[in-house]
């Protein structure tokens, strides 16, 4: 899956939190890559390590207690984990920008939108204040803030949630980043506004030719905007492939569970079959597959060792013994029957 034309390549990333109650393995062996101009989705339940993956890329892990204990983050071929804080500051906001989940709390309440935009531009670009202001106005127009000329002087609380998220996006776009990381950018918004913001992402990507990492717990969002997708479970990738392949031929039991929990509007009665059970405690993961306690197909071997991410087809990797050729189909079949009796 890795190739030389990648814009971002995350290899074997491990980010742990060293807390009083134990080591939280929030991200525990994540690999993925993003090509220029494409959109990669990272999808998973709450607590699966999506945000920590994003923050690790940007070098924003709160430390202590967090620490990236292993791995590489190659951006345009350079390992970001080896950069000095100063070098990282010149990359953040310029080369890699980020949009956060909650637009209500992500903007500074006591600074005007103008201030928060202009300071970003002036930090990274050699422009005069006046030019930066003009650029800020242009960006607000671009992201669809009506009456930007006047609105730019307002404070965040004077905007609605959707408008604030547009402002956040405008700030993120202000220095033409080649990568935009959006961490659940629509979760906090009303459904109609969600659709508008997703449209905006698609439009911006086309116009500005940047890559996007779209973090979400919503496969609907993935279907809408992502080219490829990584399904995460308990800090590890469960399945990694193209969006179409995932929906047509998703293989990992967790992926299938997620798909079943999408409400199908075509059916008469909406049936929401959420995955039963809770995500594991990241401080004390089971020895075997971390999904085993919730998995309908769990076998003996699933409790004994952790499966590896293996290619099942070209550009389609799954981390599950059911799809691991090293295991005989027969055994899997038998175990499957036993497993389903259990559930």
């Amino acid at each position, binding site marked *: 899956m890795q190739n030389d034309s990648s814009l971002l390549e995350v290899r074997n990333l491990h980010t742990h939190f060293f807390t009083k109650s134990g080591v939280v393995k929030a991200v525990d062996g994540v690999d993925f890559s993003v090509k220029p101009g494409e959109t990669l989705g990272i999808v998973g339940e709450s607590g699966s390590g999506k945000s920590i993956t994003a923050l690790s890329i*940007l070098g*924003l892990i709160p430390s202590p207690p967090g620490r990236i204990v292993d791995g590489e983050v190659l951006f345009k071929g350079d390992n970001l984990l080896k950069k000095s804080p100063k070098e*990282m*500051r*010149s*990359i*953040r*906001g*310029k080369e890699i*920008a*980020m949009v*956060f989940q*909650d637009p209500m*709390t*992500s*903007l*500074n*309440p*006591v*600074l*005007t939108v103008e201030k928060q935009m202009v*300071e*970003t531009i002036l*930090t*990274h670009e050699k422009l005069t204040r006046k030019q930066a202001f003009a650029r800020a106005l242009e960006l607000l127009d671009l992201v669809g803030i009506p009456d930007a000329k006047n609105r730019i002087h307002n*404070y965040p*609380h004077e905007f609605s949630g959707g408008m604030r998220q547009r402002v*956040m996006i405008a*700030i993120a776009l202000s220095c033409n980043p080649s990568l935009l990381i959006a961490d659940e950018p629509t979760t906090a918004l009303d459904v109609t506004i969600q659709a508008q913001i997703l449209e905006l992402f698609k439009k911006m990507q086309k116009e500005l030719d940047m890559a996007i990492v779209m973090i979400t717990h919503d496969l609907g969002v993935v279907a809408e905007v992502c080219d490829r997708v990584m399904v995460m479970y308990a800090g590890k990738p469960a399945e990694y492939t193209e969006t179409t392949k995932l929906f047509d031929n998703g293989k990992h039991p967790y992926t299938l569970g997620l798909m079943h929990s999408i409400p199908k509007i075509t059916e008469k009665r909406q049936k929401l079959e959420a995955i039963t059970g809770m995500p594991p405690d990241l401080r004390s993961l089971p020895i075997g597959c971390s999904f085993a306690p919730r998995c309908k197909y769990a076998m003996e071997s699933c409790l004994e060792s952790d499966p590896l991410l293996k290619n099942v087809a070209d550009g389609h990797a799954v981390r599950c013994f059911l799809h691991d050729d090293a295991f005989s189909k027969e055994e899997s079949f038998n175990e499957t029957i036993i497993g389903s009796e259990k559930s």
Partner: protein
Amino acid sequence: MLKYISKRLLMLIPVLIGVSIITFSLIHLIPGDPARSMLGEKATEAQLESLRQELGLNDPYIVQYGRFVGDILQGDLGQSIQSKESIGYELLHKLPATMELTLFAMLLAVTIGILAGVIAAVKQYSWFDNISMTGALFGVSLPIFWLGLMMIWFFSVKLNILPPSGRLTPGTEINTITNFYLLDSLLTGNFRAFKDAFLHLIMPGIALGTIPMAIIARMTRSSMLEVMKQDYIRTADAKGLKTRLIIFRHALKNAFLPVLTVIGLQFGLLLGGAVLTETIFSWPGIGRYVYLAVLGRDYPVVQSTILVVATIFVLVNLLTDLLYKYFDPRIRYE
């Protein structure tokens, strides 16, 4: 905004009526004959009667109160029994002395307190954090009296580098305009007096400013720690802003809000509560003025001064609220 200010100023009226009633009752709440408590045991009946006449103590309370308020409304704060001076005139000198000292003390407290609080928060658990916050804890409970005497002993007696008392070295010439000596000496280009007045301010300023400084430092630290956890600080970081900008623009401007309340409150308290410091350093301000008036049972002075201080206290509060508006755009004044 103007509407809000006028509304707040109107709300001053009931507050001041309340204060005026309390200060007025002061004389009458004290058991026994107020005239006798002012003049003491040895006063003759004739002397007592003449004082009663002078103060109108024989009139019904309501008439007395009406007169008290009427006089004040005309700008007449009455006359000191001890010095026979007009209280208004005396306050014109004492008030600026106290204000100058208070402003100086607060300037020290705010700049050092905020700076220490910010550094302690940014470098949480560092040696600076530990030392400054232990110092602040100590500072809050420091007896001013002891601190003042120690400073006088060390800087005035041992080292002889700072004057132990007063606002100016006797014999220093100064042309007073506002009775703020630092300001007056600057306005008249009198740098000798400026230096002298400044040296006189240092020790009482430190004595008065220590407790507010400690409170402000602790408040700033905890407020900064809270703000640094907020999402918008992470956003600022994700934008690649310089640390200095994140701390002072993004964090401090938010963290300052609760600190501002403390500053306003402490400022008001210092204005009225500098009694101890003014007494130790023989500072001719209103704290010492009231203290001496209480000792001398000079009730008109006590009454009027408390009323003036209360008014200033309320005005400082209003000013604090207005500053809030500047720092927190989310607050609307209607």
